[in-house]
């Protein structure tokens, strides 16, 4: 469970997150909102790239903001990026293994942990290939394997389906849905694809101009008038 209380981020005169209070209970949680709503900024606060002006974040009872940025991976915080960041010059296996070794996974468990993550996303056949030679879709799955290897506790997915064709998005959705059960991690999914969000997320929170405007079971949230007005524009789009 992640509890966010009164989180505020300021960049000069801009306030991309303005007193956000929300709880992500567990399982797969959606985080949606129009462009500039503060979703990626929220992820960057969790990752330690952005220091908030105020507020608190407790993850499984621990104060996340007190941890050094690179130590959060060791704690179990993982993420993907809007612009996929799998390492081109390393093989698929090394891409996943390096997260395992830098997040204090033991050497003895590396082979099996990496194998498990690759099998989970369906990439075991290309383990030895360099990521630079893979297509955009496969790279997204490499990033996903990187985010789940070992013992993840919180997995942040920032538009993982961006640029993917429908068929691969569906496959991605199935993989994402299985993360909480397979790895016991809480997943926060940011995406503009409402089909993917409704298919994956039991609960969803909605941000608009840095403020939380709704949260709760995904189906209820997507019907909420404020959400429809602020984000989706028209009811037909739901």
């Amino acid at each position, binding site marked *: 469970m992640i509890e966010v209380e009164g989180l505020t981020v300021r960049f000069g005169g801009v306030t991309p997150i303005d007193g956000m209070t929300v709880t992500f209970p567990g399982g797969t949680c959606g985080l949606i909102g129009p462009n500039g709503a503060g979703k990626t900024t929220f992820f960057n606060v969790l990752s330690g790239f952005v220091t908030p002006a105020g507020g608190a974040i407790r993850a499984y009872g621990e104060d996340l903001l007190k941890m050094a940025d690179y130590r959060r991976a060791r704690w179990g915080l*993982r993420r993907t990026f809007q612009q996929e960041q799998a390492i081109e010059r390393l093989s698929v296996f090394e891409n996943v293994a390096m997260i395992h070794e830098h997040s204090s996974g033991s050497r003895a468990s590396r082979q099996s942990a990496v194998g498990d993550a690759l099998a989970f996303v369906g990439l075991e056949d290309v383990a030895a290939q360099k990521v630079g030679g893979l297509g955009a879709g496969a790279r997204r799955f490499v990033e996903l394997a*990187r985010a789940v290897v070992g013992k993840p506790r919180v997995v942040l997915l920032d538009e993982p389906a961006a640029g993917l064709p429908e068929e691969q998005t569906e496959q991605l959705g199935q993989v994402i849905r299985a993360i909480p059960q397979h790895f016991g991690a809480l997943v926060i999914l940011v995406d503009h694809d409402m089909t993917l969000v409704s298919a994956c997320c039991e609960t969803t929170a909605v941000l608009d101009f840095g403020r939380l405007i709704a949260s709760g079971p995904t189906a209820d949230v997507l019907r909420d008038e404020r959400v429809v007005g602020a984000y989706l524009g028209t009811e037909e789009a739901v």
Partner: protein
Amino acid sequence: MDASTAVRVLVIVALLAFALLALPILLSDYWIVVLTEAAIFALVALGLNLLVGRVGLVSLGQIGLLVVGSWVAARFFFLTGLPFPIVLLISGVITGVIGTLLGLPALRLSGLHLALITLMFAGLVSIVIPTVNFPNGGGGVLGHTESSFGNPAVRRPSIAQSDPAYYRYTVIVIAVMFLLALIHISSKAGRAWAAIRQSEAAAIAAGVNITFYKLWAFALASFLTGVAGGLLAGDEGKLYSIQFRTIDSITLLAVVMMGGIYSLWGAWIAGLLQQLVPALLNDWFGFFERNPDFVLVLFGVGILQVLVTAPEGLVNQVPKDLRNLGRLLARLAGKATGRSRPAT
């Protein structure tokens, strides 16, 4: 060991045997000395190759570090009777510490800003060195005496007194250093560097302590450069500040990029380009001897060529071009036989 690794090891062993056994017989002492210097610069290039190619940090201060390494080694050779390899190690470690301090700005700066800061360091060294001079057997902390008559040279290892023997010694030491670099890039550190090079944010999110690994890269590159400095001191015997120019740091970056920054072989090509090519040009065309800076123009053209057509460098481009040439020849031969067939 799979087949491709086995072939690779065989090629390396064959090349090493050729360099150690055949070249000293085939070449005159003059060219052996040139090759010794090329090998030493290959080691300096290796340091920069790692920084630029593996971590994405551009340093223009490598010749400054080479000076530090040569100075420290010369000082210890005159001051102590320590065995040659121990002095190389000391010079590597001390240069490594200084290089790590130089790397501190790299934690906050990158790209052009880091290049400028490190260039300033090379400039600083080139101002300090003519003042303190290289040790030449004198007393005191600096070990320099003004009298130039009868000064001893930096000693060489007892097993490598002659130029060909010292050449072999140098090649072996450098091969060990390349092995050290290879071990690094195929280990946890190498994977961390690859992550940092791709994206610092993603590296942090992957649990990489980027402060530590950036400094580690500077420490390793500077260690290698320090060892190169020690080898250079033994090679030259007598060192003068005039031998080291700040601009050589820039030429070094050019040849490292021309050689290829993504492969360790690129560093060998860089060493040959930096030392052998000017010597060959001097030998063939007196013009270059009279206008030594003209080689910069050649490197300028070379770097342009690499940036435009082969970002992976000559180490990648030459084999590719040779394969294309082979295919072209095969096609031409095929055409020739195709045409001649109706006549027969």
